[in-house]
């Protein structure tokens, strides 16, 4: 069984999990213009952008031999929860004979979930499964830690591109992980690698910090959000994302209350503006903006797929938050029509504004 998965963020993590369970893994190629074109061609015109990109990436994975796709479902009420079903229908209609295993919330269909787990488990003993999960979780934590550090460093690198290069190298070296000890070793090595990058010295008062909030796919997947972190870094801003995969695991999958603390804290912050969880990450978006403002960030970039249902609600509320907390926020809707030059110009203007803001504030 040749297995593949949707492309999002640091894919080496999902790849590793399936590999450790003994599957033959077909890694989907990083989304390119072709991926987007394919997705757009076969998706409903008004579907949200992630659905199109993921469909495109499925098609590309199927082209290079994948037979089964493993993905996560959802419980709504945002459209993302229905991706699995829609993709299946479209792919079948296109004539692909493909098996999509969708992991929904287990409460919806307990027997079904057990069956799916057994299929993905691939006949391995539970001990191996447990070890695989532990290793991959450690890996996700390690990679996210490194990525966070890179987000801060990139603004001050002397040779443009050093950090991004190092990041590529680090992701590759994590590919060799077999056990949890490997993770620790490679994590250490990676930090040493990062220590070697030459950085400019910038006084604390001149540091610009930008938070990135929004829908999880466009925030995490750099190939479709115009490499926003690199772009902001090259414009001289430290970057922190609101979404990291390990945090998602903590909140959605890991049992126990302590793991959920951070997310609940953020949700609490958003309460004032959006009272209920309305699907997607709208409430988190609002909560994160408040959190960034309180932590003294200089600005926030809000990313959303075009016509994303929950993010439209947060977008409507953002001007009020921006005023209440005196923090500049720029909203960038992303879809297949988004032009790089347009976004870059807007971001440059946004950065100028923030820089001036800061100067007048400190002067």
């Amino acid at each position, binding site marked *: 069984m040749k297995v593949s998965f949707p492309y999002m963020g640091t894919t080496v993590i999902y790849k590793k999990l399936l590999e450790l369970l003994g599957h033959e893994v077909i890694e989907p190629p990083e989304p390119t213009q072709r991926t987007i074109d394919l997705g757009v061609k076969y998706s409903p015109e008004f579907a949200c952008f992630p659905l199109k990109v993921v469909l495109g990436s499925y098609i590309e994975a199927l082209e290079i031999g994948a037979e089964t796709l493993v993905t996560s479902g959802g419980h709504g009420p945002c459209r993302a929860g*229905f991706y699995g079903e*829609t993709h299946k229908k479209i792919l079948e*209609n296109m004539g692909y004979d493909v098996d999509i295993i969708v992991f929904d919330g287990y409460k919806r269909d307990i027997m079904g979930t057990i069956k799916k787990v057994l299929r993905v488990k691939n006949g391995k003993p539970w001990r191996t499964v447990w070890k695989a999960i532990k290793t991959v979780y450690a890996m996700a934590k390690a990679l996210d830690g490194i990525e966070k550090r890179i987000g801060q460093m990139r603004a001050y690198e002397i040779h443009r591109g050093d950090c991004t290069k190092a990041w590529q190298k680090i992701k590759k070296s994590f590919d060799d992980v077999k056990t949890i000890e490997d993770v620790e070793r490679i994590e250490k090595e990676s930090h040493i690698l990062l220590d070697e990058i030459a950085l400019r010295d910038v006084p604390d008062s001149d540091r610009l910090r930008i938070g990135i909030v929004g829908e999880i796919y466009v925030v995490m997947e750099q190939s479709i959000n115009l490499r926003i972190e690199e772009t902001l870094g090259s414009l001289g801003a430290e970057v922190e994302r609101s979404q990291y995969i390990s945090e998602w695991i903590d909140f959605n999958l890991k049992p126990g209350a302590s793991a959920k603390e951070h997310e609940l804290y953020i949700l609490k912050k958003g309460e004032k503006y959006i009272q209920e969880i309305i699907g997607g990450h709208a409430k988190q978006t609002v909560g994160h903006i408040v959190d960034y403002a309180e932590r003294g960030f200089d600005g926030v970039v809000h990313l959303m797929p075009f016509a994303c249902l929950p993010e439209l609600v947060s977008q409507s509320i953002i001007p009020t938050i921006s005023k209440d907390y005196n923090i500049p926020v720029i909203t960038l809707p992303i879809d297949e029509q988004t032009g790089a030059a347009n976004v870059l110009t807007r971001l440059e203007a946004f950065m100028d504004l923030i820089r001036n803001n800061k100067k007048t504030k400190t002067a």
Partner: protein
Amino acid sequence: MYNFLMFLRGFNNLKIGIPRALLYYYYYPLWKTFFETLGCEVIISGKTTIDLLDKGIKASVSDICVPIKILNGHVLELLESDVDYIFLPRMMSIRKGEFFCPKFMGLPDMVRHSLPGAKDKILFPNISSLSDDISDDKLYYDMGQRLGVTDKNIKESLKEGRKVWNEFRRFSKEDYTALEAMDYVLEGKLPEKQVEDINITIGLMGYVYDVYDDLVSMGIVDRLRKMGVKVITFEMMDEVMLDRELDSMKKRLFWTFSNKLLAAGYKFLKDESIDGIIHVTAFGCGPDSLIGKLMEIDSEKLGKPFMTIRVDEHTGENHLQTRIEAFVDMIYRKKSKYIKEA
């Protein structure tokens, strides 16, 4: 402040505004009777006009769907008139495990924080119930406290509301549109019989706030009827029967009204007495983007004519007329050819 106002006016004159948008077309008989039995005066905003829509567009983010822009327009109109409160419930769920579109669930938040002057005027009880009947008194107690009425009052008024709403639904199912049914239960006006000869039956898929807002659908029901078409919509069908239609689906959609639409769509596909299906959808409707695709694929399989009409603030009337005329003509020809051959 408002309590003081109430004191000055006497409770009887408390004015409650209800925007003529979104679920107004499904729940107005309930809400109107409820508030009037409570002793409030109910004020509804006028019909959707271009002017009102323009105001709504200016107050909304640009990418949001037309129905929400229209709602914003209606709320602005109510804010300008001197209502004391605007009733805008937070619709969470009317079926176990299902929800409303995220925009409905966040609607009060959106309106309170984006329309100037709306913050303290919105009444937004959280509606989550197990069936279409949302007249459970517990849902409205909090709001009652804000209005200064007792739980007992709420309970009795809801009982009245429920009666009228049930009557409205019953009448609806006798092949009358929601507007006709509303006129009947609230004003006792019996709808006129369709005079033209009926040759064709078309299943119309569309949310109540798209189909019955004349600015959005441009009176598509009347247009079709004038062409001698019998129109069936989802709210003319029995809820339980609709619900069963979706049993074959492995995973249902998350949105109750979208499920109703899809179920009606599937029913239309199977029902031999339905000659064609028209799907009316507003630009930027998220759930519809998925339903549309599912219907497109399935209608092709079963060989039933299916057309999507997507409307937004720029849609022209002639365009709509031409398309439905062509669609009806096509069905008509197909049908007469079939009869000749037989």
